């Protein structure tokens, strides 16, 4: 399986140079690494496609300042599978197994920025599954949310909602 994944990564033909070729689209990550992809991949990314359309296809190098070179290969890999119609439960399970909580959130933001509906929907469910049945404290840490209730307010709310606090899973060790 690991071999399969790395061969997929190689097939992305990632290059640091930027030869202008009309057949491919160059995506430039926030840390200035260029990823050359087929135009069909760009179609999966609505943000990229609308940029190409607006310039009548003259501009094929697209800066993506919000996306790092660490996240972009994952996004491209998912889009390739999607075009090939090979998004299966098994592929998705393998895909997220490699990702820690922070990476999932980063990819989720990337999918939102690039407007890739399928990936966005999938990652939203992944995050929901990861916080399902977790404690309030765990979820605060997961999203980096500051508790802005006063101790009295929180105690009152917890009392009103006491019935929801049964059957909560123990907190895993946070893996951020």
């Amino acid at each position, binding site marked *: 399986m690991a071999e399969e994944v790395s061969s997929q990564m190689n097939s992305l033909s990632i290059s640091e140079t930027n030869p202008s070729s009309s057949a491919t689209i160059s995506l430039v990550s926030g840390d200035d690494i260029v990823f050359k992809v087929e135009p069909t991949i760009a179609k999966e990314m609505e943000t990229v496609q609308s940029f190409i359309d607006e310039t009548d296809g003259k501009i094929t190098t697209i800066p993506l300042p919000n996306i790092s070179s660490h996240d972009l290969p994952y996004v491209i890999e998912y889009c390739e599978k999607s075009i090939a119609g090979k998004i299966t439960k098994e592929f998705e399970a393998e895909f997220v197994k490699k990702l820690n909580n922070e990476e999932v959130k980063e990819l989720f933001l990337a999918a939102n920025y690039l407007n890739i509906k399928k990936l966005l929907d999938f990652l939203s469910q992944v995050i929901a599954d990861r916080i399902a049945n977790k404690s309030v404290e765990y979820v605060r840490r997961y999203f980096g949310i500051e508790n802005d209730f006063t101790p009295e307010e929180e105690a009152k709310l917890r009392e009103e*909602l006491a019935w929801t606090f049964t059957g909560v899973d123990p907190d895993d060790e946070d893996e951020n």
Partner: protein
Amino acid sequence: MVTLPPKLRCRRRKSKPSPLTILSNDLIADILSRLTVKHLMQMKCVSKSWNNLISDPIFIKIHLHRSSLNPQFSLISSHNDDHSFVPFPVTRLWENRRINLPRDPCFQLHNKNCYDVVGSCNGLVCLVGYSLNVITRYKKFWLRFWNPATRAISQKLGFFFYYDRYKYEYYKFMFGYDNSTETYKVVALRSVTNHPLSETDVKVFSLGDNVWRTIHGFPAIPLQLHFGHEYDGVHLSCTINWMAIQDVFGRDDAVEQYVIISLDLSTETFTQLMPPENYDNYGGISPNICVLMDSLCFSYDEEAEFFIWRMTKFGDEKSCYSES
């Protein structure tokens, strides 16, 4: 080629303790819309903005829409004359056919001063209760609206009195939703069995203004049984539908003609739908209606055979019944 080997990637991450990725409210809402109601209620304690988001009507609609993709069954169980209303996911029935119903007081009706479930719509359950003054024979009805998932329940609403004079006179209640005004409505239908000349009395209660309005002119005689729910109305896309017999009393050559009477919950008017063309009512067995796969179905049972028709397009009774 700049594919980073996984090991290098990890090291780079650890050396740079980056701040947590913060997600916008829209994205948080999308994630939270996938949680179960019980867990979601608990998540109100995370922060003030989460508490507001989870209580927001727009968010509630998004959550409801997503939950409707995971259908819930409801069972009404009876134990020593106390009814319980127990929701559980349909998928559980596939996993295990034996169901152990929880004897949880939160699902019981008697502690809510109600005796029966009128129906449920979008996860909201309508309950009905009554008390009877044995001397004056006046019966007092009330309704309560209950969300078993959040455990929120309304006050007693929609009180009305009725003089319980005849043994065969009774009210049947139906619960539905008017999409055009986004209003929950309860329909009360009263008829006198074996009494052809009495008019059927139909009242509609709107949750919001909490008023009962009478709707005149029920165009037929509803087919109803006093006990059991066999001929109760069925709720489908903003209408309540009853099986009825066309009013042919007083005509000697009359043959009983079954019709479906449909009440539009937004216009509060009646329409009459005919049974499938190839249905003939020999044998005197009453047909029935039900809702399957979001379509109105017409069925009847003839000894060893069971016939069912599905109205593929609601309201179009002529061309769109398909027989199965």
